[in-house]
């Protein structure tokens, strides 16, 4: 760690990992509810659990991105963070907001109150006061990071990272606009949801991946930047109009079916680009970096993002297919592998890379971390397959044969049971990862093998 203020990242990563634990634990509970639908139905109804599962995912991924920015921007810009105090204030706002959200959801406090109550829009359920808090925190963050970058060296990595983070914050403003027309409501809703995960977050992903490749492989910055620009160009080209693949059945004009189908089919290109980028860099790289775990997570991220976001996304993106599969377990399969591959693995990669520096040690206990990668990834991949098969059967029985929803759900029991099993593996993997990050102190890999990371 070259700059003291990089230490801020440690606090962000710690909170992120704590929420990660909450997210996967709730995932396990929800997985069990699919198997045994009355489980906890009084204490934690399914809709509440699902809100907490998705909201905690988004918040911890965002905290991971913020942590990553606080870690890598000083190194790239070659100066300390503008104001470490503001960074901690920003984190405090997020923690208070998250706690407020959890309490509000769990006990359904202030139901119907415009300021304090549940907002009621899927994924954007946060009460208004929390949304305002998110905007204030985002403004603090953007001010802090932008001031640091503006005063220091500007690199392609920080430019793209800032572009992604600014875009992410500005698009969140659409969360405040909720027209009473349900079709328009959904149209603007996707400006946040789609243009985050298939637009601005991809820029964040590409830039963090580029930083990791730069550090881990030692390939020239010039080469990495060229890849980065191409990936970002293809991501924006396909992703912005790719929003159309959410406009098939919400009441928007029919031409969106073709715009959405054609542009979103190309969304696989940037994900393929990121996978090719990661592997080509590792093959070309001359540096034998000791942090093998960070490299494993980086390669796993690029690969699983390509399959989860790219391939599984394409599976049901054409409107002729989506007419049948919309809202079935196919969507759940895609959602799980895409988020895991693209954004969970990315965060765990940068955390794996940064932790040894943040805690002043050499890469340690990589075996545990790498075992966590394989356990968690195998779990999510198996889950994706069970849900894909469940979704295929569901599509046929429900959408082709016209059987009733709950009758079909009964017949999917076996898939849900297997999915629960894979969920157990994911939770164990997550626990192992957190343990490997937080606890072991002495085990250092053999001396002489180490080279200082730049």
């Amino acid at each position, binding site marked *: 760690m070259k700059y003291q203020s990089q230490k801020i990242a440690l606090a962000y990563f710690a909170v992120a990992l704590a929420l990660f634990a909450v997210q996967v634990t709730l995932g396990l509970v929800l997985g069990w509810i699919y198997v045994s639908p009355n489980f906890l139905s009084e204490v934690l109804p399914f809709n509440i659990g699902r809100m907490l599962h998705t909201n905690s995912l988004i918040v911890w991924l965002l905290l991971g991105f913020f942590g990553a920015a606080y870690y890598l921007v000083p190194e790239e810009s070659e100066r300390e963070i503008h104001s470490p105090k503001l960074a901690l204030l920003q984190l405090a706002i997020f923690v208070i907001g998250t706690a407020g959200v959890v309490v509000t959801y769990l006990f359904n406090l202030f139901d119907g109150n415009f300021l304090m109550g549940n907002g009621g829009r899927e994924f954007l359920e946060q009460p208004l006061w929390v949304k305002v808090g998110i905007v204030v925190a985002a403004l603090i963050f953007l001010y802090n990071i932008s001031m640091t970058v503006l005063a220091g060296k500007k690199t392609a990595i920080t430019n793209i990272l800032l572009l992604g983070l600014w875009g992410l914050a500005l698009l969140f403003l659409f969360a405040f606009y909720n027209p009473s027309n349900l079709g328009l409501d959904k149209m603007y809703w996707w400006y946040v949801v789609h243009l985050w995960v298939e637009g601005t977050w991809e820029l964040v992903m590409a830039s963090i991946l580029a930083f990791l490749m730069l550090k881990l492989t030692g390939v020239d910055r*010039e080469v990495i930047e060229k*890849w980065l620009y191409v990936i970002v160009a293809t991501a924006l080209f396909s992703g912005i109009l790719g929003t159309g693949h959410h406009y098939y059945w919400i009441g928007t004009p029919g031409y969106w079916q073709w715009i959405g189908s*054609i542009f979103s089919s190309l969304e696989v290109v940037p994900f393929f680009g990121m996978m090719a980028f990661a592997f080509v860099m590792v093959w070309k790289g001359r540096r034998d970096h000791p942090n093998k775990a960070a490299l494993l997570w980086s390669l796993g991220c690029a690969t699983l993002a390509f399959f989860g976001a790219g391939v599984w996304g394409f599976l049901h993106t054409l409107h002729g297919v989506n007419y049948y599969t919309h809202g079935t377990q196919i969507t759940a399969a895609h959602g799980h592998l895409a988020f895991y591959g693209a954004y969970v693995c990315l965060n765990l990669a940068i955390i794996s890379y940064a932790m040894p520096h943040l805690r002043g040690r050499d890469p340690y206990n990589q075996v545990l971390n790498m075992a966590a990668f394989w356990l968690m990834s195998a779990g999510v991949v198996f889950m994706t397959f069970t849900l894909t098969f469940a979704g295929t059967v569901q599509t046929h029985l429900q959408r082709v044969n016209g059987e009733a929803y709950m009758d079909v759900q009964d017949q999917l029991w076996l898939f849900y049971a297997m999915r629960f099993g894979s969920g157990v593996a994911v939770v164990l993997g997550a626990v192992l990862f957190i343990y490997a990050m937080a606890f072991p102190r002495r085990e250092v890999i053999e001396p002489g093998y180490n080279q200082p990371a730049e």
Partner: protein
Amino acid sequence: MTVAARPQPDTLPGELLMWVLILSELLVFGAGFAVLLGLRLTDPPGFAAAQVRLDQPVAAANTALLITSGWLAARGLAAARSGAAARCRISLLAAALLGCGFLILKAHDYAALADQGIGMESHPFFTFFFLLTGFHAAHVAAGILLLIGVAWSAQPAGVEVATAFWHMVDLIWVLLLPVVYLL
């Protein structure tokens, strides 16, 4: 895609990102043409009946305008390379002017269809007609701005990027013409 660290004389001419854009555009328009031709198979008489409503002489005039404009843009690049800034500017601005002519005729085309009460939802053919020609016209407008922008400094590198884009706009029109207007 090459990952060569430094551009060598025999590597990709022009700007890598422009080539990425050109390839992406060709993919999108290519997919659009393929779907249009595919849908036509499901209803040949309906598509034929829709197509006769188009004004083919205007399309022919637009083709002539764009191809001439492309030639002028290429002359502009040659002039920029030989350092003749004034000649470069005249060629590029003339190319942009013909592009404006294309847009005027296109607007006339759309107005004529609107007078017949034809819109995007009238028939699948018209959905694609408006999508493809509309996207293309938007690129013509962007290309005009690009040409005017690079004419300002008349530097070979910038002119090369803008003319590459302009030739793509040209190429897409030449592919669009048979698929949408003639076949």
